[in-house]
């Protein structure tokens, strides 16, 4: 990723250099999903329907885990979870 200081550092037309992973969208949320593994059946519906790819499943069989760096707190996972293993909680403000 070149260091962009002056116009000389720019490509001739804007092509991108890196992913959006540096854009931690987790700061957007006012509520956050909490997963209760005791209720979780690992059906991965939350992983499937997460618009922000913020439900990580390392490999088949693992429990899903929520990536709070990016989760925007939309609550789709909680709404879609068939076993009520996810509930939304107010974001504790720092």
């Amino acid at each position, binding site marked *: 990723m070149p260091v962009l200081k002056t116009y000389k550092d720019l490509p001739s037309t804007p092509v991108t250099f890196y992913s959006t992973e540096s854009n931690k969208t987790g700061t957007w949320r006012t509520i956050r999903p909490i997963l209760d593994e005791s209720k979780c059946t690992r059906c991965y519906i939350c992983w499937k329907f997460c618009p922000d790819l913020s439900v990580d499943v390392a490999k088949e069989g693992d429990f899903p885990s929520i990536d709070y760096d990016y989760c925007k707190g939309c609550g789709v996972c909680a709404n879609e979870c068939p076993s009520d293993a996810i509930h939304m909680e*107010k974001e504790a403000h720092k």
Partner: protein
Amino acid sequence: MIEIRLHGRGGQGAVVASEMLARAAVRDGMHASAFPFFGVERRGCPVTAFCRIDDKPIRIHAGIYEPDYVIVLDPGLMALVDVFQGLKPEGKILINTTRSREDLTIKAHNKVVIVDATGIALKHGLGSETAPIVNTAIIGAFVKMFPKISIDSLLESVREAAPVKKEENASAARDAYEITKEV
């Protein structure tokens, strides 16, 4: 001329708040200009809005970099955005929070006024627990800090510009005005 900068999140009404302040200032015979930071608004994303108020016509068409007042609608933003950047040494700060002045880790030594705008907003059914609409409460408190704008003009402007729940928004502004201590 005084320059105000409001910090909020998408959907919290920071831009409408700056509009209401401009309307109230014009009602009280002053000149005003209000504009949002022209970013790509997204719900929840930090949003900044600005307002200039003066006795003579305002002709500058440019951003505000050294505000006289900073109004923080969402305290959570203080961890993300340097909300006090460029604040004039004698500038004043208004923050929507329930924490005391000491709890707030604010390096700046400017005068800080606190108001529980969220509590007031929710009392009047404005927005939800997770997405309170705090803009009218907080500008009610602001007018106590900037008496050149009368509370009556502000309430009239709130009723005029509030897209919905006009009376509830006006009551929230009045409540905040009344409980904020004279500055």
